[in-house]
């Protein structure tokens, strides 16, 4: 029996981290970005997925850092690694089809899982220029599954993102820009697409055929109606399974005592 934590013993970041860790399966090759995804993957490694292989975009292959690196370029990434290399290797491995799962973030997402990390407003005259793509489109192009971790706000779950930085299930076919299923565009490189979004309100998945997002579980304290209210598009809530699993006490111990004791990425719940 799992020893689930009681409300008050865990915070929202703990819930997101554990939900993300549960997306990982043992023996998978996982591409990890900086921050909460890194903690989630290392949590999975310490619990149900001891044989997962970790790849950092900056060039560390199969690393086993005993403490959380501050970014994928960090010296801590290399501890226990199979190989310290570079970006050409990391992206070639992804394009070659080795990557089972990638974890990503985004500023905006649409109902097809297209994600924007480039700008808010008109691209040619933006209200705000963001970081840019980074490896987001590359991981999302090549991994069999990708999981996004996002803050949930109505302005972020939009009908149409300002700029498609990273491809979802229905993507633009250039030069015309009409939306087609990604299978049609990716050909031999097609392996899958966004598999889940873990937002601050719930967990969302995608129908691989029609490409639409649907609500899978609500985090404790949220209802499907409240979550629909925070989306600009019609959200399919017909398949809701119930509540997102809350962290176990053992997961909380690992997060706060072992993985992120300095609370760099995951603050402790306020007592």
């Amino acid at each position: 029996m799992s020893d689930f934590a009681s409300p008050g013993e865990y915070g929202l970041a703990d819930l997101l981290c554990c939900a993300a860790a549960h997306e990982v399966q043992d023996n998978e090759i996982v591409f990890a970005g900086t921050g909460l995804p890194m903690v989630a993957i290392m949590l999975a490694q310490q619990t149900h997925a001891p044989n997962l292989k970790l790849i950092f975009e900056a060039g560390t292959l199969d690393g086993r850092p005993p403490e959380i690196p501050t970014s994928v370029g960090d010296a801590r990434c290399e501890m226990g690694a199979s190989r310290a290399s570079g970006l050409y290797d990391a992206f070639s491995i992804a394009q070659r089809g080795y990557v089972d799962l990638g974890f990503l973030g985004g500023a905006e997402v649409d109902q097809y899982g297209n994600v924007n990390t480039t700008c808010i407003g008109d691209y040619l005259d933006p209200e705000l220029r963001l970081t840019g793509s980074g490896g987001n489109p590359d991981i999302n192009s090549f991994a069999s599954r990708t999981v996004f971790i996002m803050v949930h706000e109505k302005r972020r779950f939009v009908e149409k993102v300002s700029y498609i930085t990273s491809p979802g299930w229905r993507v633009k076919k250039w030069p015309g820009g009409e939306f087609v299923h990604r299978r049609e565009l990716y050909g031999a490189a097609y392996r899958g697409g966004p598999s889940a979004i873990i937002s601050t309100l719930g967990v969302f998945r995608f129908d691989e055929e029609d490409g639409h997002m649907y609500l899978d579980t609500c985090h404790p304290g949220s209802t499907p109606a409240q979550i629909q209210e925070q989306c600009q598009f019609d959200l399919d809530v017909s398949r809701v399974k119930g509540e997102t699993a809350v962290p176990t006490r053992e997961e909380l111990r690992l997060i706060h005592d072992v993985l992120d004791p300095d609370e760099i990425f995951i603050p402790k719940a306020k007592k």
Partner: protein
Amino acid sequence: MSKSKRITVQQAAEIIKDGSSLTFSGFTIWRRPFAVVFELIRQQRRNLHLIEVNGGPQTEFLVGAGCVDIWESCWVGHELYGKYGANLSRKVAEKQILVEDYSHAEMMFRFAAAAAGAPYAATQTSLGTDIHNPAYDTLGQAGRRDGKRIAKHKYLFTEDPFFDGGQLVQVPAVKVDVALLCVQQVGEEGTVRVSGQYYSDPEAARAADITIAVAEEIVPEEYLRRHADQNTIPSFEVDYIVECPFGAHPTGMFGRYDVDGAFLKNFYNGTRTQEGFDAFAQEWIHGLDHTGYLEKLGWPRMLKLRANTAMNYSPREKKGGN
């Protein structure tokens, strides 16, 4: 013996002319050649064309100082010490800079193509995104595609002609005048040994017409050649070498020193406005040389950042830059 490749930080900056295209070693907040970047700002270099696999604080400093005309890359920020590139964002909004967006893998493959002497790379990454939106070809719309230093097209589409694998995007090789590297060790003849992840340094060095290696230490070439399997870049790809301890500060260097998170946080928080940037530059760049900069930083701070040689990072520097 060929003539010495040794030059100073000032001379390294003088090699990079107004209008040059320039790239850097490192990854986001790691191993960026800051001593020379600061010197470029002191020398008031203008109209630089930065072509980067990814950007970082060095981009933000040069952009903030008005040195950059075109920025071609995929990402800029300071990792957990500053969530986006505030200076680039400001200059984009004010239309003072041209930005050409590619994806990270596309930029990497463009460098790899240049390093192999090939005109372009073919890939299936980023299909279906606005990176390939023809209306967003910034350099084309600005009339800058001369087919010499800037490719005639941002990208082209093709169908896999060999195995019918579907659509491909062809992205042009980069044309880089100067690659500025910051590494742990370089030999007197130019052999570079990078410790830790080497990011995209080998491709950057080979792609550029001129490669300058700024190193924590210049070591006897013979020492490096005893274990050639540990070396990263061959001697003849490096044109100039500079010895410059702590040359990557405020970014980090594997095995030598950590990222100075507090410094980057300060920079990010203080330079959202041009006035803020100018004040920061006045305090930390102008009127100093590299030694003066390190003196201002102070040895207690440098010792705190210094890496433990067994762990390759500093166990004293609290993660998060507080």
